[in-house]
């Protein structure tokens, strides 16, 4: 939708009213999650647009997708704030590739820092355009015109936002030069506005991708290999084809069925007789960490400082430790699902994904058709946590739809989701550190094998440090995850910090403060410690207290945990988490994100682990893969450090990183045993 032609088509379809196009330089566009155009001389591209209709309804078009992180509401708030209009008059049109401008995807906590300011500027520009219009139409002084609660008011006259354009379409482009309302003056943004589509959620009316229905819909099922790398040698589909209404599709390694209802499709699937050639000698989880180290590449640290040798020579104490992190699965409650429909040579797919345009590209590639002939629509999705970047289910459904000439729905089973989705990378982390007797760190040598570099950078002030990420060969298909490697890196770093503090007989809070100059990091640590009551009391028998700090994607946090260990089982009793992500946009929803992250983190800290052997996932069921439940939830106290002087930063991910190390440190205090693996074994 970025070409002039489609833009013009689109604008004419919008009809009268005010249109504001958000224009960003391509360099920024990349930052805001948009396609980089190789070689172009910084072309201007459109990242979003806003249309005020003559009925006063405001439609906002963005490629971002809602998956529970609440951006449908927070972006509405941002627009309402600058437009001086009620949230109820704003309609977000999101993640439909035929209707919205290109967007790289919804991940990396980029929506709040990049998309929200663009929309706020568009709204501010629209408001200014309306003020100008009122000034000339009514012949009044510009200063006399005000916009409040969705109306334009001046000298005893008033009009709705859409009433002044008189059937014309006024198009404005905005760049970087619009001024915005400072956070301190926010009336709508910065407040706890209820979820805009909450009522649809509690009545079951909201349609997720797996709920989409089309006339003549068939249900699809894919024949999955018996193990990773298995080759389909022979397929006998005679019995399946006998079942009335069943279509069998075989294209190379891909075999699938479709039928008028899901039960028949399942019956047809089990009637397929397949012969597989399996690949022997695949690594299993018991050899995982040795395997990752054996296949590791050398890393590089461009931000290294000083010399590790020197730092260790300066130290009074040295410590080397290894930490490990298992593979875990996102387990979104809504598995991958898609409904695909071909109309002539145009393909439409409804699917839950964080990257609608990425999936459009995948689909176009899979069928050898131009992207303009593919439309991807993302209904607000049953969560992703980084697990829904790719379009597997979309392609499978589209293949079946093409073969059958009918729309096809394909919903992955939980078992497929566990087996054929991708996982959060496992990793091995080795740290060697040096410290003076007085607690000042002198050296920090950090190596992450396979799991990634995010969140490995330190906010501690250490004269000699080196932080290396060594990519490796992963036995399982791995990918993005909420916070990605930051959880692993925080677990290792903050556990190690406590190990040093213990060696020095220093209080963990005092030890951290001694090595911290970063003011924002100190502020969240002190806020959490105070709320937790750190140092005020001793834990009761069998309980322990632990602390950790964190910094990732521009936001800061600190966590305090109290853990009880009974019969070798840790139970998290209380968690205090302080979080700072610049100016707070919606405090209640931010709290919800922090609480949700803390709870999700409990799974990876204490129970979750994908086990595999011989190219098979050993525990691909919810009865075998334990995720946090009601009884696992501790008392959670969230301290939001609201920095109205700083730009808002996304918060869907970073709050997840502090829990595991705080819990590990508390377990150590309770038991004297140091957990060095995730999930933790006590």
């Amino acid at each position, binding site marked *: 939708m970025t070409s002039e032609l489609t833009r013009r088509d689109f604008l004419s379809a919008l009809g009268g009213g005010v249109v504001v196009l958000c224009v960003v330089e391509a360099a920024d566009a990349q930052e805001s999650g948009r396609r980089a155009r190789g070689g172009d001389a910084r072309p201007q591209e459109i990242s979003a647009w806003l249309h005020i209709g003559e009925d006063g309804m405001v439609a906002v078009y963005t490629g971002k997708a809602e998956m529970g992180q609440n951006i449908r509401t927070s972006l509405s708030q941002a627009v309402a704030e600058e437009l001086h209009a009620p949230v109820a008059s704003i309609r977000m049109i999101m993640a439909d590739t035929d209707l919205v401008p290109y967007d790289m995807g919804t991940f990396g906590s980029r929506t709040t820092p990049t998309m929200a300011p663009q929309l706020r500027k568009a709204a501010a520009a629209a408001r200014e355009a309306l003020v100008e219009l009122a000034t000339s139409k009514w012949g009044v002084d510009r200063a006399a015109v005000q916009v409040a609660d969705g109306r334009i008011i001046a000298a005893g006259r008033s009009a709705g936002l859409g009433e002044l354009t008189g059937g014309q379409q006024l198009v404005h482009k905005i760049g970087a030069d619009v001024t915005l309302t400072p956070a301190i003056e926010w009336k709508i943004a910065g407040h706890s506005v209820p*979820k805009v589509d909450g009522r649809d959620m509690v009545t079951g009316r909201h349609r997720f991708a797996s709920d989409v229905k089309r006339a003549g819909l068939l249900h699809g099922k894919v024949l999955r290999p018996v193990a990773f790398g298995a080759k389909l040698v022979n397929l006998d589909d005679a019995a399946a084809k006998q079942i009335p209404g069943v279509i069998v599709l075989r294209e190379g390694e891909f075999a699938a069925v479709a039928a008028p209802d899901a039960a028949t499709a399942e019956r047809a699937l089990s009637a397929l007789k397949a012969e597989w050639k399996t690949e022997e000698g695949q690594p299993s989880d018991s050899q995982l960490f040795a395997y990752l180290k054996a296949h590791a590449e050398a890393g590089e640290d461009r931000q290294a400082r000083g010399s590790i040798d020197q730092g260790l020579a300066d130290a009074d104490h040295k410590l080397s430790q290894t930490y490990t992190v298992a593979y875990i699965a996102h387990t979104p409650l809504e598995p991958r699902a898609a409904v695909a429909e071909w109309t002539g040579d145009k393909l439409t797919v409804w699917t839950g994904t964080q990257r609608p345009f990425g999936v459009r590209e995948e689909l176009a590639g899979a069928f050898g058709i131009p992207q303009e002939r593919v439309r991807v629509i993302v209904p607000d999705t049953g969560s992703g946590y980084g697990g829904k970047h790719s379009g597997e289910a979309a392609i499978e459904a589209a293949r079946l739809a093409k073969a059958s000439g009918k729309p096809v729905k394909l919903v992955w089973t939980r078992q497929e989701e566990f087996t054929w989705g991708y996982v959060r990378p496992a990793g091995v982390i080795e740290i060697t550190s040096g410290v003076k007797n007085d607690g000042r760190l002198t050296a920090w040598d950090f190596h992450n094998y396979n799991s990634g570099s995010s969140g490995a950078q330190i906010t501690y002030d250490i004269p000699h440090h080196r932080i290396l990420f060594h990519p490796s060969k992963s036995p399982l298909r791995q990918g993005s995850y909420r916070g990605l490697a930051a959880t692993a890196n925080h677990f290792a770093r903050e556990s190690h910090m406590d190990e040093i503090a213990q060696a020095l007989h220093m209080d963990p809070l005092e030890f951290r403060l001694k090595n911290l100059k970063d003011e924002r990091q100190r502020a969240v640590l002190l806020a959490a410690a105070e709320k937790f009551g750190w140092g005020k009391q001793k834990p009761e028998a069998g309980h322990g207290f632990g602390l950790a700090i964190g910094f990732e994607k521009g936001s800061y946090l600190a966590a305090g945990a109290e853990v009880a260990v009974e019969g070798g089982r840790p139970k998290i009793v209380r968690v205090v988490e302080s979080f700072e992500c610049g100016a707070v946009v919606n405090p209640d929803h931010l709290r919800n994100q922090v609480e949700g992250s803390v709870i999700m983190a409990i799974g990876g800290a204490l129970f979750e682990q994908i086990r595999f052997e011989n190219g098979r996932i050993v525990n691909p069921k*919810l009865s075998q893969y334990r995720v946090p439940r009601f009884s696992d939830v501790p008392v959670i106290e969230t301290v939001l450090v609201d920095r109205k002087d700083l730009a808002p930063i996304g918060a869907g991910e970073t709050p997840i990183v502090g829990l595991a190390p705080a819990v590990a440190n508390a377990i150590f205090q309770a038991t004297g045993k140091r957990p060095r693996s995730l999930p933790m074994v006590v």
Partner: protein
Amino acid sequence: MPRVIELNVNGAARRVNASSERSLLSVLRDDLDLTGAKYGCGEGQCGACTVLLDGEAVRSCITPVSRAAGKRVTTIEGLEQDGRLHPLQEAFLETGAMQCGYCTPGMIMSGVSLLAKGANPNDAEIVHGMQGNICRCGTYPRIVAAVRMAGLHMKTQRRAS
């Protein structure tokens, strides 16, 4: 194969024609287009598919449709009466007890059945009663608060009437 011809869903007789071993979940979703109940695991572990049979919460993904024949089936779509939400639906909105909302219908149905049993449950009873429902987004504390709030509300209403 025996077939189920009719179901009583949300107070109305609905014609279906489903082989009796099919899951109640698939008949509700695919045949009756009542998509409020969700598939989350198909193994009775997550509660996303929860509906009521004669007021009792069941996991419709592992309930053969034959078991629902002759019983009152209530789904999330049937809770709202004359445009008025059930107190627990109101409480979910009030406490913001959802993120992606995929677990929400199942949570509400489990909560409704819990509230019908012990009018005003305390937190421990709520946790115990809701343990079979998973919220992957981790909104548990708010869901507990919502059930507690609805319980209180229903108690005062009963007193008033």
